[in-house]
């Protein structure tokens, strides 16, 4: 029979290990790696030292301390999802503009390789 502390330590260490593995294998880069590195450190610390939760509960004045990591974790997941959608919107904008520019440049190449030409005005240098 496992004690609660050993169970939480196993979960924390496994999660932290998986994240570290992915970061080291370069599957997560830049700011994503930093974010997940923080998550790995937190799950490791809280898994191995669950008394930290009780201490945090006392510090923050929350009567039922075990709910604290759930609330904080859910909030962080929501923030992460929001950031994901912001990033996706930015990338969607870039893909659309790149697609448009690719078509425009391809048309100019065709025209320059073929018949007459009219020089293009300086563009806005955006994708």
């Amino acid at each position: 029979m496992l004690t609660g502390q050993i169970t939480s330590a196993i979960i924390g260490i496994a999660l932290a290990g998986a994240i570290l593995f992915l970061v080291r294998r370069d599957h997560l880069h830049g700011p994503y790696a930093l974010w997940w590195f923080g998550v790995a450190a937190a799950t490791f610390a809280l898994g191995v030292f669950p008394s930290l939760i009780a201490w945090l509960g006392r510090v923050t004045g929350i009567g039922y301390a075990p709910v604290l990591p759930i609330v904080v974790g859910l909030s962080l997941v929501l923030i992460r999802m929001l950031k994901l959608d912001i990033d996706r919107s930015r990338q969607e904008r870039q893909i659309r503009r790149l697609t448009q520019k690719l078509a425009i440049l391809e048309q100019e190449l065709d025209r320059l390789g073929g018949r007459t030409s009219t020089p293009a005005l300086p563009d806005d240098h955006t994708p």
Partner: protein
Amino acid sequence: MSAIAPEPAKAATCLVVMPARDEAPTVGSVVADVRRLLDCAVLVVDDASADATSEAASAAGASVLRLPLGLGAWGATQAGIRYARRRGFGQVITLDADGQHLPESLPVLLAEQARSGADVVIGTCVGRLSRAKRIAWQYLRVLTGLKLTDFTSGLRLYDAQAIEVLSGQEASLLDYQDVGVLMLLSRAGLTITETPVTMVPRRAGRSRVFASWRVVARYMMHTTVLCLAQIDAVRRHRTAGADPTC
């Protein structure tokens, strides 16, 4: 490149932009009609068609932009507007390639622009609006404060200022040439006017906005969120004393 003799860019000419997806049966005749009626360059933006839209447009004498990914009606139109800005065209006229907009209407837009001096002229045909569209437009009129009769008409004339605004990054995440575009133009302080024109039922294809009830519902929800996000901008514009419609 040095072998190609440079010419000055055309400053005050117009470009007719036609977004087209799988419109091979109609695009050639529409291009030919436009070229017959107007002394403007014609650009067909092929929105990743699976058929011979590009070939039909080229054969009819249009320049063609081929988008490697389907961007939707507005993405294709914006590609044409960016092309116009890059090439120095002073006016862009947009019309659908499916034959519902009569090329005979284009001189009407130009005449209205010359008369009113508006930055944007929308060709509308109120008679063709279905009951559902009338209700939808009434809702959008209340929500946006824009006093227009048809929000999705693809028959439009944009001047150089409008081309500048619509070429920007801010316009790139819009999906339709409709409320979002109009609010962007209105927020930039540009004047928008409408003129009645004759339209006919589509010869082929179907509306991308009014394709099915599910699409309409999604469209109305997206547009409502868009309007709510921009509502203070429109209010500011109105309280500044400018009527967004004239």
